[in-house]
């Protein structure tokens, strides 16, 4: 399949900080590429380069087959961008923001108006259409940002952390909208620090940390890469948790994780074939089980294994990546 987004060896530094240290990525036309990484990993820098807002120091990138540096104007005719930094005008009403973008894209007066009304109703904003955007709630704000990036019916859509700061309902609304767009054949590049978001939406995932790609693949491939499956065992008698841990360790060939005070032993197992042995030995030792379950490792564990730290550690500081990268960009080059 034709690649809608391709990047090879992207390098970008801000002063002494290397935001991107040679990033490759590709998204097939009509697919969703999830770019996953903690704050400061370089996700936003990558999106800013791909959307022609920033020039790379090295490497090349193309969107829709056009080079983002030498054919930037062509790229801009194909893309839509939603991110915390590519915003709409607070002082204008929702409708006027969309009309303005329609006019800038060369639509006629009536056409811009019709397109604005269509998008406002599709994003459930009709009631707030005549109000200035500064009166919108966080979720409405995100929806108008998304609507603004769709006025020109882009073929390739860049969504930089589209659900950061939204409540669960707001997130699932945005997910549904993304699914509809993908159904229409739009290629989507989505950055996120939420692993379940990438798991839910992305066909392919690129994991970035400290400006490097540390893993690529489908969500299933990534989960498999990290050692297949996760076994969770809960003894009926919490006092026997140490016995459970030592038995499980013998079979799994990996140190089980027993969190202090927890009643559960968690361990990565290479294959389901080891399970009968574990069950037998637990039984022989007279350990009664409250719970015994095997599941695929979640992207959370994948992330922990790949980067050595949990995604959530940094997720608390949402938004700092954007700010620091902005500041660095403002510094003299």
């Amino acid at each position, binding site marked *: 399949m034709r690649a809608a987004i391709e990047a090879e060896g992207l390098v970008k530094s801000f002063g002494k900080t290397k935001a991107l240290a040679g990033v490759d990525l590709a998204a097939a036309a009509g697919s969703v590429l999830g770019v996953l990484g903690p704050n400061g990993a370089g996700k936003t820098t990558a999106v800013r380069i791909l959307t022609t807002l920033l020039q790379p120091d090295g490497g090349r990138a193309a969107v829709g087959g056009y080079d983002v540096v030498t054919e930037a104007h062509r790229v801009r005719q194909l893309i839509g961008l939603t991110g915390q930094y590519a915003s709409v005008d607070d002082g204008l009403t929702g409708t*006027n923001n969309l009309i303005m973008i329609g006019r*800038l894209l060369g639509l006629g007066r009536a056409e811009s108006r019709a397109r604005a009304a269509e998008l406002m109703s599709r994003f459930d904003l009709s009631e707030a259409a005549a109000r200035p955007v500064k009166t919108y709630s966080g979720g409405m704000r995100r929806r108008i940002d998304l609507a603004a990036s769709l006025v020109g*019916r882009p073929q390739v859509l860049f969504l930089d952390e589209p659900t950061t700061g939204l409540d669960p309902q707001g997130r699932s609304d945005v997910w549904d909208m993304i699914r509809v767009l993908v159904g229409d054949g739009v290629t989507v590049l989505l950055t996120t620090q939420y692993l379940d978001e990438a798991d839910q939406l992305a066909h392919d995932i690129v994991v970035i940390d400290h400006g490097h790609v540390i893993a690529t693949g489908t969500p299933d491939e990534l989960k498999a890469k990290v050692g297949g499956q996760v076994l969770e065992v809960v003894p009926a008698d919490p006092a026997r948790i140490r016995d459970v841990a030592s038995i499980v360790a013998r079979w799994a060939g990996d140190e089980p994780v027993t969190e202090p005070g927890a009643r559960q032993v968690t361990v990565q197992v290479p294959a389901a074939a080891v399970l009968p042995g574990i069950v037998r030995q637990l039984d022989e030792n007279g350990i009664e089980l409250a719970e015994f379950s095997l599941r695929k490792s979640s992207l959370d564990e994948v992330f922990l294994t790949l980067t050595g730290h949990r995604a959530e550690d940094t997720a608390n500081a949402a938004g700092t990546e954007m700010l620091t990268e902005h500041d660095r960009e403002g510094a003299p080059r």
Partner: protein
Amino acid sequence: MSTATLGAPAAPARRVSPLTGLRNSLTLTWRSVLKIRTNSEDLLGLSLQPIMFLLLFTYVFGGAIAHGDVRAYLDYVLPGILVQTVLFATLGTGLMLNQDISAGIFDRFRSLPIARWAPLAGAILGDVTRYVISVVVTLAFGMVLGFRIATNPIAAIAGCLLVLAFALAMCWVSAWIGLIVKTPQGVQTFGFTAMFPIVFGSGILVPIQTMPGWLQAFAKANPLTLLAAACRGLMRGGPVAVPAGESMLWALGIMLVFAPLAVRAYRRKT
């Protein structure tokens, strides 16, 4: 939604035609004007400021400066207040550009297939509306207080146009400040700090004869002195050609220096 209907012409254009650029600028001018119309606070401030200065100068300082003849002082000071008000209003250009950049609206524009220079042109063209509002309010309120045009309406309009032309040059200074300073607060601090000595070290509010020699020299060369003198001549009678010509030369010079600086700072951002 179909992606084939609109977004994908056979091959997208390689660059923006100047005509499209002009249309982009006009759309963004429309946005600026819309913002002025909907932002009642800005509109109120824009109108109240010249009213306050007129009242202040006429009734607080006027009597002392003109030895009791308030009416005569009003005739003297109104063209000066006109110049001062429009000059302060030019700060809005830099402020708006700066806010657009920090709020991320600029990045939205930059991701669109529009002319690179259109947001800058749109901001400046849109601000002309603010300058016109300032001029009209100042003149109208001055007339309420008793200012009379002693020449003829056409000359008075020419005086207003002179002030607007000068503002159009000064807004490049403001745009430049707006593009190089990091925050909107910074724009205001820098802008006002730079403006106060220029506004008060001039003959726009008081005759310069009582100033010390060095300040007289500064005030005489100050383009605001020249501009206010030309405007006074056009509205109240007196020499026009020399101060008008000199102030417009200044405007041209300011534009020639600061427009390229602003465009360069703007290109760095884009």
